């Protein structure tokens, strides 16, 4: 690392102008930003925001979506989207007010003095240009390169600094040849190309796997520390913010509700919103004992109800194969045996290449419990869920539901099976049909399975809405009128309308803000106890696992690497990979220091 920095072209104190470390680099005073709606009214997005960044310091703005954190960040580089404009206050960068600058002056400042690492690595590199061109462009636009050869040499060096090996070759590649992590490193290289004094990092790693996220943030930290660059980190993750920044600014509904030293805020949150945020952050929950006790109670009630229902003969095996009941272990509702899924990849030479998405996975799921399947993208966890749901057929191995091999189902049994096993998907904006009213969405499963008449179905819809704590007036609304969390509640209501035994949650809370995520997780626990549900919970987020799961299966590259009770996995991980995952939870270091 130090070798790279000390080589030619790198900054040294001499080629930087002297900066007074005690004078603020960036000072925002009473900033108001508003957008104009298409009806012509002004909608405030940030109100009276104050924040200060000193040279070389890392400051984090934390808030949920719609809190105004990104708006504030974009106002600093004058890149507010659409109709957004600064309507009051000042943004002083090294004492000069950005809001009063001309376009030319602002362009000179962007990139050169203030760099930006944007949020989505997938859409922020131009797919038609080579990586080398895009990095050189940043250098040349800011007058950092004398000629194209110099730009190329510096670009290679920047990529090297950002942690991309074999930089010379990387320069000639296109963005689609890069993984998400590599793209984000490229964006960091571009953001830091002109050696800005301030780097704005807008959710720089939220689209990446936790382990990659940690590597990149570690790297960014060393790099900016070496360069003396101040960082303004925008994030929704309180744990991550507290771990990376000295100073925290908490935003809520366009206002700063609390700011101060990061550790102080975590240890002693003052504003009720901050308190709520600290309490809900899954990565920071030191309440393991409390959670565990709560789980035990939930599971006990769920098991009682589920077992009673199973004995009543309400299970699938009794419906379709009475002879199988005797042989079935009553406690294991799902048994996954040597499940394997091989995909053929086209266009790889004459013979199609094979890709093992799921490789010989076996485990069982006990009735009334929650089993989490954890893994990073590409670990095969979602393919596994699809096979359990019979949306994909396994290449080898089998799934036993109530002791019956799911693969042997005919049309009728499959229809009955659909009633007992229901999914909840990740994307709250994609899992509900936009042309269906909420009523029709929840009623659909009932109508499909010909349950009850019109009146009783309406009663069921009302009851389901009540169970997911939504007013029955939302029945007449459409998905686009609801928030992500509310849509996810509707998706839960729809999944539960048929009273299934097993619910497969595929990243069901991953796209939600922490407070909403906590609400939905609590709701899922509550419903589990009331209805005796069994959850198969697919997630990439170990912090969430601890809140809800009884048993954890860790997957890596299609293989099951570790399977144990939740506490055992968190306290005594057996595999290196599990340990890596655990350490990568943002704020993981903060919990252990506070917990023990």
């Amino acid at each position, binding site marked *: 690392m130090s070798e790279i920095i000390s080589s030619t072209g790198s900054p040294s104190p001499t080629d930087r102008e002297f900066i007074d470390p*005690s004078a603020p680099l960036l000072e925002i005073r009473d900033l108001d930003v508003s957008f104009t709606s298409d009806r012509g009214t002004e909608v405030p997005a940030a109100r009276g925001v104050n924040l200060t960044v000193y040279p070389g310091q890392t400051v984090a703005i934390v808030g949920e979506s719609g809190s105004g954190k990104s708006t504030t960040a974009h106002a600093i580089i004058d890149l507010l989207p659409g109709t957004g404009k600064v309507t009051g206050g000042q943004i002083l960068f090294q004492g000069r007010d950005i809001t009063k600058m001309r376009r030319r002056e602002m362009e000179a400042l962007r990139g050169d003095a203030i760099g930006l690492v944007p949020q989505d690595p997938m859409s922020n590199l131009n797919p038609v240009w080579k990586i080398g061109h895009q990095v050189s462009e940043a250098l040349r636009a800011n007058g950092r390169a004398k000629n194209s050869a110099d730009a190329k040499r510096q670009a290679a060096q920047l990529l090297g600094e950002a942690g991309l090996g074999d930089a010379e070759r990387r320069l000639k590649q296109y963005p689609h040849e890069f993984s998400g992590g590599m793209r984000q490193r490229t964006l960091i290289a571009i953001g830091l190309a002109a050696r800005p004094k301030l780097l704005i990092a807008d959710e720089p790693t939220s689209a990446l796997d936790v382990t990659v996220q940690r590597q990149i943030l570690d790297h960014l930290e060393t790099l900016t520390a070496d360069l003396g660059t101040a960082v303004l980190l925008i994030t929704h993750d309180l744990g991550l913010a507290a771990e990376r920044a000295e100073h925290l600014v908490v935003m809520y509904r366009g206002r700063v509700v609390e700011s101060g030293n990061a550790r102080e805020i975590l240890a002693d949150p003052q504003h009720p919103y901050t308190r709520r945020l600290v309490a809900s952050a899954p990565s920071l929950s030191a309440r393991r004992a409390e959670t565990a006790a709560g789980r035990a109670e939930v599971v006990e009630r769920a098991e009682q109800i589920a077992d009673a229902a199973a004995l009543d003969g309400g299970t699938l095996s009794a419906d379709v194969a009475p002879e199988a009941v005797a042989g079935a272990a009553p406690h294991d509702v799902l048994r996954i045996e040597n499940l394997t899924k091989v995909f053929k990849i086209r266009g790889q030479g004459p013979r199609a290449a094979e890709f093992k998405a799921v490789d010989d996975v076996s485990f069982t799921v006990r009735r009334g419990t929650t089993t989490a399947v954890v893994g990073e993208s590409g670990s095969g966890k979602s393919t596994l869920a699809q096979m359990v749901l019979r949306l994909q057929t396994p290449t080898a191995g089998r799934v036993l539901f109530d002791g019956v091999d799911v693969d042997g189902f005919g049309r009728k049994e499959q229809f009955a099976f659909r009633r007992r096993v229901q999914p909840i*998907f990740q994307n709250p904006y994609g899992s509900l049909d936009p042309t269906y009213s909420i009523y029709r969405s929840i009623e659909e499963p009932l109508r499909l399975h010909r349950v009850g008449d019109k009146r009783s179905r309406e009663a069921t819809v009302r009851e389901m809405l009540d169970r997911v704590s939504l007013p029955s*007036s939302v029945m007449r609304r459409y998905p686009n009128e609801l928030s992500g969390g509310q849509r996810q509640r509707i998706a839960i209501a729809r999944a539960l309308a048929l009273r299934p035994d097993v619910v497969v949650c595929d990243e069901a809370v991953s796209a939600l803000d922490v407070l909403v995520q906590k609400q939905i997780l609590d709701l899922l626990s509550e419903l589990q106890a009331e209805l005796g549900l069994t959850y198969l919970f697919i997630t990439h987020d170990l912090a969430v696992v601890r809140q809800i799961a009884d048993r954890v299966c860790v997957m890596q590259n299609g293989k099951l690497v570790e399977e144990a009770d939740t506490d055992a996995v968190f306290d005594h991980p057996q595999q290196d990979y599990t340990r890596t995952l655990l350490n990568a939870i943002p704020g993981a270091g903060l919990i252990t220091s506070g917990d023990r």
Partner: protein
Amino acid sequence: MSESALFEAQTRFVADLEETPLGTTDQVDESTPPGGLWLEAWRTLRRRPLFIISSVIILLLLAVALFPGVFATQDPTHCELQNSLAGSTAGHPFGFDQQGCDIYSRVIHGARASVSVGVLTTTITVLIGGVIGALAGFYGGWLDSVLARVTDIFFSVPLLLGAIVCMQAFPDKTVVVVALVLAVFGWPQVARIMRGSVISVRSAEYVTAATALGASRTKVLLRHVLPNAIPPVIVIATVSLGAFIGAEATLSFLGIGLNPATTVSWGGDINQAQNSLRSDPAVLLYPAAALTLTVLSFIMLGDAVREALDPKSRKR
């Protein structure tokens, strides 16, 4: 050196709770009236000048096409050569053409032919193209390959060239014949749009969710995929309705479209008017202006509908 002493502007700040009241997490916003995709599209549309202007013109056009007698009392086929190329007089605001027919009356009565061909052709193309595109997109595999090639074959023939060749085969050139011929070469565009739209909807999570609920393939296609795949088809249908009216006028202008002896049409009149183009250009102006205004209105309407139906261009 303590940090707080150095960074004096960064002392602990806690906002006044009265100024920043804590709301209930994720409360349902009941301030707006409920409405679905179509209702919201309508709410957006009815405020747009582009939509208002084009739909007023189109409504007027439809009224003229349905009840031409209300707008023009003169018989368009009653022509007296003594009036040839006479200027406007009382009761004949646009004057007379070379044959001595009342131009105003011919423009009014010509609307019916154009509108009938446009509406009929669009209906047929949407039906054929929609079904083929939806089947190809939804089922994929060999069915898609076969249907896509068939579509491409028809797509490779330019609309007008194909129509010119085909029209020769029909001695009886009625509105239905022209519409059918135009539709034969017009449906591939709809099929392509429908196929692309269905493919993008097919992989949506709500489609997977419906499958997991136990819905059959057909039910998924009819109840979830089609309603969501329709909006781009509506847009293309609106725009191409205008284009088909233009194509019909072109065929009639070339003398191979609607029979000028039996049907009054703008294209036929433009053809007739070119004889007197040098001496009396106004004769050409009126049917041409009617045609342009009609085609333009449909294109504008298509644009307005596209904006209203595209969720990305609309803010919540």
